[in-house]
C-alpha cells in the first residue's frame, strides 16, 4: 500500500473514531439518517450509583440436573419482581454456579428492593375446619392468574383482588364450596404470613377473590407484585451487598476523568519534550489509541456482552496508556541507537520498528496472560480491571505498529524529519 493511501485511511479512521467517541454521537447519527443507536458508555454501579446484590440460592434439595433450571427460575422471578417497580436497566445474572447477582442502578430505596427480592413468596390455600384444624389443599400460588392492589371504594381500605387461572377455576370453586358447606374458614398464607383468614359466604365459581386487612396501599401493592411474579423455586439469601450513593459515584467519575486527563496531557508533554518529533508522533498515536479504546467500550454496548466501565476498569485503562507509550518508547530508543550507529533517519526508523517488535510482543503477551488469569479469578472488581487492561494492551500494539509507523514514515520524508537533531540526537554522538 502506498504511504498516501495509508494516511488517507488513517484520516478516515480518525473521523469515524471521533464521531463514535463524542458523548452525543446519537444526535449526529440521527441527522445522518441512522436512528436508534444505543451506543453509550455503560457505567458500573460504583460510578453511577446504585446497588449490587448477590444472592446465594439454596440448592441442597435440588437434584444435580435441575440446578441450572432452578437458577434460571430464580432469575426469572427476580426479574419480574424488580422490573415491575419501574427501575430502569436492572440486570439479573448468574454469578458462579449457585449465586445470582442483581444490579440495581440508581435505586433510592435499596431496602425495599431487598425485601421484595428475598421473599420466597410461597402462596398456600388452606382449608380450616370448624374445629380450627387447618388442612392443605390442592390450590396454590401456581393457580393464580393475576393479582391487583386497589382501594376499596366502600371503606377506603387497601385490598388485593386476584383472578384464578381458567384451568384452576373449577378447583377453587370445589374448595370454596366445600368450606362453605362445612362452615369452616379459608386461610391464605404467603410465606407464613396470613393474607386472608375468614369464612366463605358463598362458593366462588368465577375464580375471583379479594383480600383485605393490609397496613397500607404500599403493602397491598407489594403483595400483589409478589403474587404476580410467582414463587422462587428455591429459597435465596443475601450474601453480598454493595451500595454506592449517586453523589459519590458522580464524584468518582468526575475526579477519575480529571485525573486521567491530567495524566494523559503530562505524558504527552513528556514524550514530546524527550523525543521531539517522534514524541509528537507518539502523542498523535496515543490520541488515536484513546479514541479507539473509548469506541470499543461504546460499541460493546450493542453486543451480547457489554463492557461495563467501573472504577477498577478506569484504572486498567489508565495503566494501559503506560503500556501504549512503552511500545513507542521501545521503538524510538531503538531508532535512536540505529541512527547513532550511522544509519540515516529513514533506515534507522525502519530498523527501530523491526527490532523493537519482539520486545513489544513478548512483554505484552506476558501482560495479556496476567489479564487472562485475573479474568478467570471471577472476582467482579478484578474482572473489570482485566478486561480494560487487555483491550488497552491489544489496541496499543495495533496503534504502535500501524499508526505510529505510518506517521513516522511520513515524517522522515520531510526536511525537518530527516535530521537527527529533530529527535534530540546530538550530531557528535553519531558514529
Amino acid at each position, binding site marked *: 500500500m502506498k504511504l498516501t493511501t495509508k494516511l488517507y485511511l488513517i484520516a478516515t479512521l480518525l473521523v469515524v473514531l471521533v464521531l463514535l467517541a463524542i458523548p452525543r454521537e446519537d444526535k449526529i447519527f440521527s441527522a445522518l439518517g441512522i436512528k436508534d443507536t444505543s451506543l453509550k458508555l455503560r457505567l458500573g454501579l460504583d460510578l453511577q450509583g446504585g446497588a449490587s446484590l448477590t444472592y446465594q440460592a439454596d440448592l441442597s434439595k435440588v437434584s444435580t440436573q435441575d440446578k441450572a433450571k432452578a437458577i434460571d427460575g430464580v432469575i426469572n422471578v427476580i426479574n419480574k419482581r424488580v422490573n415491575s417497580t419501574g427501575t430502569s436497566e436492572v440486570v439479573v445474572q448468574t454469578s458462579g454456579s449457585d449465586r445470582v447477582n442483581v444490579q440495581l442502578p440508581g435505586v433510592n430505596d435499596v431496602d425495599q428492593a431487598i425485601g421484595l427480592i428475598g421473599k420466597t413468596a410461597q402462596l398456600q390455600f388452606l382449608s380450616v375446619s370448624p374445629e380450627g384444624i387447618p388442612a392443605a389443599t390442592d390450590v396454590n400460588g401456581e393457580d393464580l392468574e393475576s393479582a391487583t392492589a386497589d382501594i376499596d371504594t366502600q371503606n377506603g381500605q387497601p385490598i388485593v383482588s386476584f383472578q384464578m387461572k381458567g384451568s384452576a377455576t373449577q378447583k377453587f370453586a370445589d374448595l370454596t364450596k366445600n368450606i362453605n358447606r362445612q362452615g369452616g374458614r379459608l386461610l391464605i398464607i404467603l410465606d407464613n404470613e396470613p393474607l386472608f383468614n375468614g369464612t366463605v359466604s358463598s362458593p366462588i365459581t368465577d375464580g375471583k377473590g379479594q383480600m383485605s386487612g393490609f397496613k397500607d396501599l404500599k403493602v397491598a401493592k407489594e403483595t400483589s407484585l409478589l403474587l404476580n411474579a410467582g414463587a422462587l423455586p428455591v429459597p435465596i439469601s443475601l450474601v453480598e451487598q454493595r451500595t454506592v450513593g449517586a453523589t459519590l459515584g458522580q464524584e468518582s467519575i468526575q475526579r*477519575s476523568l480529571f485525573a486521567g486527563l491530567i495524566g494523559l496531557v503530562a505524558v504527552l508533554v513528556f514524550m514530546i519534550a524527550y523525543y521531539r518529533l517522534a514524541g509528537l508522533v507518539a502523542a498523535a498515536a496515543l490520541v488515536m489509541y484513546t479514541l479507539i479504546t473509548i469506541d470499543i467500550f461504546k460499541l460493546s454496548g450493542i453486543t451480547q456482552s457489554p463492557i461495563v466501565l467501573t472504577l477498577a476498569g478506569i484504572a486498567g485503562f489508565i*495503566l494501559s496508556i*503506560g503500556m501504549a507509550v512503552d511500545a513507542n518508547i521501545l521503538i524510538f530508543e531503538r531508532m535512536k541507537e540505529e541512527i547513532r550507529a550511522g544509519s540515516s533517519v529513514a533506515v534507522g526508523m525502519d530498523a527501530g520498528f523491526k527490532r523493537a517488535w519482539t520486545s513489544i510482543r513478548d512483554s505484552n503477551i506476558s501482560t495479556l496472560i496476567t489479564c487472562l488469569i485475573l479474568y478467570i479469578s471471577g472476582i467482579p472488581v478484578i474482572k473489570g480491571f*482485566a478486561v480494560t487492561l487487555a483491550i488497552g494492551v491489544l489496541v496499543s500494539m495495533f496503534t504502535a505498529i500501524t499508526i505510529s509507523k505510518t506517521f513516522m514514515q511520513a515524517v522522515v520524508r520531510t526536511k525537518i524529519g530527516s535530521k537527527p537533531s529533530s529527535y534530540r540526537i546530538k550530531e557528535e554522538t553519531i558514529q
Partner: protein
Amino acid sequence: MNIVGKRKIWFMISILLVLPGTIALFVWGLKPGIDFTGGQELEVSGQTTQSQLHDIVAKVGVKDITVTTSGNDRLLVRYSDQGLDKELGDSQQIRQNIRTLLTQQSLTETSFSSVGPAVSRDVTRSAILGVAMASLAILLYIAFAFRNTPPPVSPWSFGATAIIALLHDALFVLGIFAILGHFFGVQVDALFVTAILTVIGFSVHDTIVVYDRIRENLRRLNKPFEEIVNISINETLARSLNTSITVIIVLLAFYLFGGESIKYFILALLIGIISGTYSSIFNASPLLVVYNNWKIKKAKAVK
C-alpha cells in the same frame, strides 16, 4: 555504567528495602478488609469525629469496629456482623439500626457494602489461586519465549530469575502495606490483589525487554556473558526509565486527583512499579550472571 559488576551493592539495597516490610508481613501480617473477612462497611459524611462515630455504631452491639478517614470529610466504618446474639437480628436489621442512629445525628451514608462469609471465602481462595497461577504461567511463558536462547544460558534461568525479581516486587508492596496496616489501619481488599498481580505483570514486562536484548546480543556479540548482560542493561536503560516515568506520571495524577476509593490501589501500583523498574535493571539481569557463574563453578567442580 557498570551495573553487573557492582551487583552486590544492588542486591544489598534490595535486601535493605524489602527486609523491613517482610518482617512486618510475618510479624503483623496484612489487615484484611471485608472482602476477605466478611462484614459490613459504610462510608459516612457529615459533622462527626472518629470516636463519635465509633460510639454510635457500638450502640448497636456489633464487634470489631474500626473507623478510618476517607478524605473529603468522610469516614469509613467497618464492623463484623457475624457470630452475634440472635437478639440483634440479622445483618439487614443491624444495618437498619445503624442507619436510624446516623440519621438522628444528621449524618448520611454515602456508600454501604456487606460481604457474607461464603463470598469472602471464595474471594480469598480466588485471590491466592490467581497469584499462584499467574506466577506459574509467567514462568512457563518466559521459558517458552526464550527457548531459542544461545548458550550459555538455559531458557529456564530466564524464567527463574524473572520470578525472583517478581517476588521482590510483590514482597516490597506487601511489606509496605503490612506496615501501613499496622500503623494506619490500612486494609487490603480485592482491588489490592489486582494491584499485586498488575505489579507482577509489569515487573515481568520490564524484565522481558532486558532479556530480549540479552538474547539478541548473545547472537551478535562475541564477548563474555557478564559483559553482554551489562551492555544489554545499559542499552535498555533509557527505555526502562522512560516507560516507568510515563506510568508513574499517570499513576501520580490519579493518586493526587483521582477518587478516594482507589487511592490505596493506586499507591500499591506506584510502589510496585517503582520497585519493578529497580528490580528489572538491578536484580533480574545481574542474577542471570550470578546463576550462570554458579553453574560454571559447579560444572568445574564435577570435573
